[in-house]
């Protein structure tokens, strides 16, 4: 067994182990941390495959950017009553692993009974990569010549992704004056249009739903319109 084989077993085994732990751990914060370890090990696999540039990109983008996003999201949502794994639907807990295992067997069967690959090209051999100065240079040459248009489109995808994320996550900022005038139109999905309902009291995150229920109950009893009640609470 060569050193590369040993490295493959160690890094691949750690990647699989951490991936399984991502799925099995109940705390999403622990899932995110196991995901980091899994991504780093996959980056090591990329290095074994001679794709150093992709490995560095993997570390920067996944463990640097995406994981920070995940940790922020985990901390921004409520953590006290997180849904437990397998809760509610026993069918889900049974069918999911069965389907997954079936898919794994199918893919393994395909790999075992694989047909020989087509004729290997000669433009990305180790000698050719060494001739242009290394993996990064070789990938850069391909990226800026044969794949120039997809590369530019990828930048457009990132731009649209950034704008979309900002629009979606931005809280509703309709000014109070415009709301009183009945101008409630907004495209933001941040939180409900009626802003009093949307701002929960500190320490009581159930406030929005409760506020709506209270309001409806009060409306039924006193015959008071919601609008009037809102104005009175604002004062």
């Amino acid at each position: 067994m060569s050193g590369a084989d040993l490295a493959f077993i160690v890094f691949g085994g750690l990647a699989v182990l951490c991936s399984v732990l991502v799925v099995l751990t109940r705390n999403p914060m622990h899932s995110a941390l196991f995901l980091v370890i899994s991504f780093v090990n996959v980056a090591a696999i990329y290095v074994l495959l001679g794709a150093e540039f992709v490995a560095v990109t993997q570390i920067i983008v996944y463990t640097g950017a995406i994981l920070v996003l995940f940790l922020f999201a985990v901390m921004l949502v409520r953590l006290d009553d997180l849904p437990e794994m397998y809760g509610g639907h026993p069918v889900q807990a049974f069918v999911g692993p069965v389907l997954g295992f079936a898919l794994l067997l199918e893919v393994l069967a395909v790999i075992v009974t694989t047909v020989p690959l087509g004729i290997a090209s000669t433009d990305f051999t180790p000698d050719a990569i060494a001739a242009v100065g290394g993996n990064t240079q070789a990938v850069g040459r391909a990226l800026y010549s044969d794949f120039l248009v997809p590369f530019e489109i990828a930048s457009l995808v990132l731009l649209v992704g950034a704008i979309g994320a900002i629009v979606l996550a931005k809280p509703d900022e309709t000014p109070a004056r415009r709301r009183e005038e009945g101008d409630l139109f907004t495209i933001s999905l941040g939180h409900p249009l009626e802003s009093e309902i949307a701002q929960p009291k500190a320490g009581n995150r159930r406030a929005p739903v409760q506020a709506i229920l209270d309001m409806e109950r009060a409306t039924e009893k006193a015959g008071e319109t919601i609008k009037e009640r809102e104005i009175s609470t604002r004062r």
Partner: protein
Amino acid sequence: MAQGGRGMQPALEWYLVLSAILFVTGLMGVLTRRNVLVIFMSVEMMLNAVNISLIAFGRALNSSTGQIFALFVITVAAAEAAVGLAIVIAVARRQDTVDVGQLGTLRE
């Protein structure tokens, strides 16, 4: 372990097996977990598994396309994570839950 075409390296099949195992692990996470954040993490794991396959095939065929494609997959994964997590945060703020069993609609 069989030797691949390039020096003392594990063969292509071993990388494909690793990729398949990681992909199926992510798939099981998507199918069994109910927390939408963990489902997102599982999707990222599946994209990673596909990247391993792409790069392994690229090496076996002496082609740069595999690595270029992996870079594009990483780009799309980054954009997807940004938009997806923004949606998750917006929905969690409105409906106060991240359980996909309870998130039946996108409205109130």
